[in-house]
């Protein structure tokens, strides 16, 4: 795992705390991914419930990269960058797996006893937690940007 504290760009110097960590694309790293988001959420002043929701959404996104992006292939990496300002968290997840746009999938509905579909739940969780979800393919990398700027008070 590489860790780098990035100096903030001049325009955000007074407010944004930027942290970037690169992890092997393995599920055993999810705890560390959560920890990096927890630290950033704390800098934003988020309450415990909002912080947890952001950790959950980020981990769902990273699980998607591991399972659907790299498809379990060894050697992949995923970079998680957090930009924290009071009341405003941006998490950007960057990987060099083949193009994978989680925002292109239609959102599943709430399950019912007649429809216990389990697929697509992670993407639903990401959209329900985050206030903005943006995907972009830049060069040979996937960039998924998750923004949270309102308190989470329930699904």
């Amino acid at each position, binding site marked *: 795992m590489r860790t780098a504290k990035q100096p903030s760009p001049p325009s955000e110097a007074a407010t944004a705390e930027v942290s970037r960590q690169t992890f092997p694309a393995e*599920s*055993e790293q*999810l*705890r560390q991914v*959560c920890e990096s988001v927890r630290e950033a959420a704390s800098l934003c002043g988020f309450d415990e*419930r909002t912080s*947890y*929701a952001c*950790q*959950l959404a980020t*981990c*769902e996104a990273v*699980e998607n990269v*591991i*399972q659907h992006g790299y498809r379990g292939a060894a050697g992949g990496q995923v970079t998680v960058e957090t930009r924290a300002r009071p009341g405003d968290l941006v998490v950007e997840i960057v990987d060099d797996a083949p193009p994978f746009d989680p925002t292109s999938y239609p959102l*599943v*509905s*709430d*399950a*019912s*006893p007649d429809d*216990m579909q*389990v697929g697509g*739940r*992670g993407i*639903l*969780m990401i959209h*329900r*937690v985050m206030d903005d979800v943006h995907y972009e393919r830049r060069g040979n990398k996937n960039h998924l940007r998750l923004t949270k700027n309102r308190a*989470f008070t*329930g*699904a």
Partner: protein
Amino acid sequence: MEIKTQPYERVTVVAVEGRVDSASAGDLEAELKRLIEEGKASFVLDLSGVEFLSSSGLRVLVTTLKTVRKAGGDLRLAAMSQRASDAIELAGLDPLFKTYEDREAAVASF
């Protein structure tokens, strides 16, 4: 993640603690499969100690629910932590499960 199993007369209580994500969900799935293979079909999952519950863990809960309902049993949730409850609602899976304030109430419901 820690799993503690406690047999009752008509039901098996499985208490899950810690993180349930794609790194640990396989262990929970294996334990529930083992119990089902022993002939158990009625479960109470005590989620009071769950600190993190991702869609990988939720997938195990739903697949187990399907299996035990087919066998005439059920999987009911007890004493959910706020974190477990939030994850289940965010995933839109709360309509599937019967939930109880505490373990005793869930056991008595069978």
